């Protein structure tokens, strides 16, 4: 029953012009970066940096707007003999799968076309996990706020915090506590930011320590590549399930 509602929500979203546009922009971007012609791992890193910027932003903004626009439809579905959990799940999966497909086509095709097989696969994987994470966060911020403008505002603030402010804070901490053994602390801090986790997951694979930054280097030193990747992947999964669990709990109690 779940999968059937999901199917139609997915159909509907895949016809959405915005998702098609998103996919096209990613594709043009990836092709041009590769075409400009640096060596392959540098091109992958450049694409990665853009993805870490764009994917969270698009998922947060589009996810939040989509949730508010679907409110009347969700309300309609809730008057049918179906429980709230199924509808929430269908809405979430519908949105994150369609955004992931947009991403897969937009970035996956160019990367595979030029034959970056392994690093390309990790790049796509990172992007898809980030899509699932930030769609979950978008749902959380929509469920918290009844008002659409506040919800979108909160999403923008979360994005600003995770992409810009967080890095600044980590830098400050490293700068001031340079003399102390803070490696472990930095690892814990990093797990608090899914974007950083995505970067580490990717960079440990590509293995360019120079581009890894402090947190990445610490991760590698501490865990070695494989375990480091496994740990960041686990933390990223937590970043999907925690916001989802909280928002589902709130969604069950929402008065429509």
């Amino acid at each position, binding site marked *: 029953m779940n999968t059937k509602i999901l199917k139609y929500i997915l159909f509907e979203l895949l016809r959405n012009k915005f998702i098609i546009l998103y996919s096209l922009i990613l594709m043009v971007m990836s092709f041009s970066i590769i075409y400009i012609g640096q060596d392959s791992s540098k091109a992958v890193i450049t694409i990665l940096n853009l993805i870490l910027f764009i994917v969270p932003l698009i998922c947060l903004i589009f996810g939040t707007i989509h949730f508010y626009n679907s409110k009347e439809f969700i*309300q309609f579905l809730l*008057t049918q003999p*179906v429980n709230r959990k199924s509808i929430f799940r269908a809405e979430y999966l519908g949105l994150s799968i369609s955004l992931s497909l947009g991403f897969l086509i937009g970035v996956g095709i160019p990367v595979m076309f030029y034959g970056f097989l392994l690093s390309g696969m990790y790049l796509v994987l990172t992007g898809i996990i980030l899509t699932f994470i930030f769609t979950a966060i978008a749902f959380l911020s929509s469920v918290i706020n009844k008002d659409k403008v506040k919800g979108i505002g909160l999403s923008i603030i979360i994005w600003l915090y995770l992409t810009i402010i967080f890095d600044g804070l980590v830098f400050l901490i490293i700068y001031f506590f340079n003399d102390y053994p803070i490696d472990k602390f930095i690892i814990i801090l990093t797990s608090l930011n899914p974007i950083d986790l995505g970067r580490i997951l990717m960079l440990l694979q590509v293995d360019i320590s120079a581009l890894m930054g402090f947190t990445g280097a610490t991760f590698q030193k501490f865990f070695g590549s494989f375990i480091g990747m496994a740990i960041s992947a686990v933390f990223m999964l937590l970043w999907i399930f925690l916001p989802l669990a909280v928002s589902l709990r709130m969604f069950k109690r929402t*008065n429509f």
Partner: protein
Amino acid sequence: MIEIKELKMSYGKSRALNGINLSLEKGQVVALMGPNGSGKSTLLKSILGLVIPQKGKIFVNETDIANNYLYRTNIGYMPQIANYPENLKVKELFNIIRDIRNGSKEKDEELLEKFRIFEIYDKYFGQLSGGYKQRVTASIAFLFDPDILILDEPTASLDPLSTEIMKSKIIDSKNENKLIIISSHIISEMEELADRIVYLLEGSIRLNMNIKDIKNGSGERLGKAIARVLQSN
């Protein structure tokens, strides 16, 4: 059919429902009336499970509706304004609803035919006017032949012809021994359709009487009669 006991609900500091007790039997049309903000929508939405009341219980066909959803199989609902995803086809909406009900067969396609929904089956909701969307919503409410119909301002955005189709459908359903609850502002329409008036004011029921008893043979218009009874209470 529907039994409401000591229902209380507030949003933040503002009280929406103030201890509602109401019992509604089948085979009648109940008009739920009252000014804006009197709690009509909250009451209807509580019956549907869209609003979760803080206190009190609601029984539909003797089942407590708290943490239950299957009872909604027996309820058809038509909201005041329905909005569907732009890129969804009308046909697909019907498929979703069929799938939710595990492929149970439509039993009552009368409105589907009279509102000529089949003609727009392949259109996207983004292409439809508000009136058409409302007609789709109406036909869905009646589609599975539910025992209870909850209609929130059903004729508000319908054209005159559709309004008449809707009215006769409501009367037919009543004669099929169903319970129809209508929330409406249009007194003349309720005079025509309803058997009973439930009047809400500031979250409390101020009046719950049969139209016959309200008028009491006085030959007044319904609006005037309601005002007289409200004043004398």
